[in-house]
């Protein structure tokens, strides 16, 4: 037992030298000649194990993970410093009042004027508020996902505009919003409501025939099964259109932003690179969910 414990210590001492201090097998064997025969094969195995364990994560995963982690860090900080009355953390009545206000403003033309505003313009908060209202008033998951895709397109336009105006902070804010929308699309695309259409897609004429007793009743405009089938097809069509939109954005948005790298000032390039990384990773995830 004592001998065994002594050998465990010697082996560990050698491993420590091999693993952490850059020592060699030969040096260890010279230090412990009385254990050399037993040590040598074990140290060879340990060395091979060390080399084989040096698995490296894929660079693209490392980049994506780094960005997501840094975004989580910033989000934590943002939550902490967010004032009580602000979008995202408001009591329900505040949201309701805001909705009414925005609807009232819509009549005055302010909303229309704000719709084309950029992040550095006074009406931009009205634009964001209007978008929030649109989201609140869109009940279905598929509808929300479609809206988030449109908003993602707007944020990319804004990022491009802010890059031209040398405003990195505005780029970062728009990028955070873009990231949030793409994450939402991925999450909404996985919901049962959005995926259900894919499963219940068969056309009415292909629907299985169920034997049932004939019942005399008023004929609906469309047979029930056909109606169900039609609704499902519409949902599948909308889902396919959403996917096509996301595919198109996935190709165009990062490319559009990357093209700007040649012309924008150096000071906005880090923020622009971050926006490119976000759009690439975000669309990839959204498409995975839509597949």
């Amino acid at each position, binding site marked *: 037992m004592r001998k*065994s*414990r002594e*050998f*465990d*210590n010697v*082996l*560990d001492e050698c*491993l*420590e030298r091999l*693993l*952490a201090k850059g020592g060699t097998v030969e040096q260890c064997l010279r230090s412990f000649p009385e254990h050399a025969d037993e040590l040598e*094969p*074990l140290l060879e*195995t*340990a060395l*091979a*194990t*060390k*080399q*084989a*364990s*040096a*698995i*490296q*994560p*894929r660079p693209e*995963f*490392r980049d994506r*993970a*780094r960005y*997501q*982690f*840094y975004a*989580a*860090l*910033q989000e*934590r*900080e943002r939550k*902490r410093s967010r004032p009580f009355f602000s979008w995202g953390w408001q009591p329900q009545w505040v949201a309701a009042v805001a909705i009414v206000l925005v609807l009232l403003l819509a009549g005055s033309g302010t909303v229309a004027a704000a719709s084309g505003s950029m992040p550095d313009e006074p009406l931009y908060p009205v634009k964001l508020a209007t978008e929030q209202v649109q989201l609140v008033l869109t009940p279905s998951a598929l509808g929300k996902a479609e809206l988030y895709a449109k908003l993602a397109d707007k944020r990319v336009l804004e990022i491009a505009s802010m890059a031209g105006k040398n405003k990195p902070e505005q780029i970062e804010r728009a990028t955070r919003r873009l990231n949030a929308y793409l994450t939402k699309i991925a999450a909404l695309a996985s919901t049962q409501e959005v995926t259900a259409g894919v499963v219940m897609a068969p056309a009415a004429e292909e629907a299985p025939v169920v034997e049932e007793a004939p019942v005399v009743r008023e004929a609906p405009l469309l047979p029930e099964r056909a109606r169900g089938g039609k609704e499902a097809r519409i949902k599948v069509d909308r889902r396919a259109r959403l996917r096509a939109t996301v595919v198109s954005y996935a190709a165009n948005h990062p490319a559009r932003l990357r093209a700007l790298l040649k012309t924008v000032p150096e000071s906005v390039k880090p923020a622009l690179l971050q926006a490119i990384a976000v759009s690439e990773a975000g669309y990839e995830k959204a498409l995975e969910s839509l597949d």
Partner: protein
Amino acid sequence: MQDEESLVQRAKQRDQKAFAQLYEEHFDKIYRYVALRIGDKTEAEDMTQQVFLNALKSISSFKWKGVPFAAWLFRIAHNQVVDYLRKKNKQAAAPLDESLVSSDSNPQLMAEHSLDVEQLLLATRRLTEAQRQVISLRFAGELSINQVANIMGKSQGAVKALQHSAIVALRKILLAGNNEEVQRI
């Protein structure tokens, strides 16, 4: 150690740079540890990311007791691995992830290296859970015996004995594998 303590204290006080530094220092080791424990690169990626997001969530509850920060992170990773293996029940029959052996960009290195990774992944699956944990923490996580003992909740002597038995078992498994290959040829 004092440097790490002050870094962790800063991270606890929501210093983003401090937490980012801890992330960069430990990311690869945690990834390697998880990959070796579960033998699945894709899952290892997601789990590694989750380890750090969980660490970010619970950093405020971390109490410095002189134990390296890595030990805390590896404990989070260990718990996730245990949960994963329990849920997936893949421990005994996980298919070998081919992509694990092709992540090296140098073709020659890859050719020499891939066989080792493959052998190691297959061999470690035949170790006991405790032996696999020691090998993963010591070789992939590059932790000292003291740190491994802390994470596993065992004495240093017990971990050294486990380490010894794990390397002996690994050698036997690898040699048996080689002999089978030679016989097939």
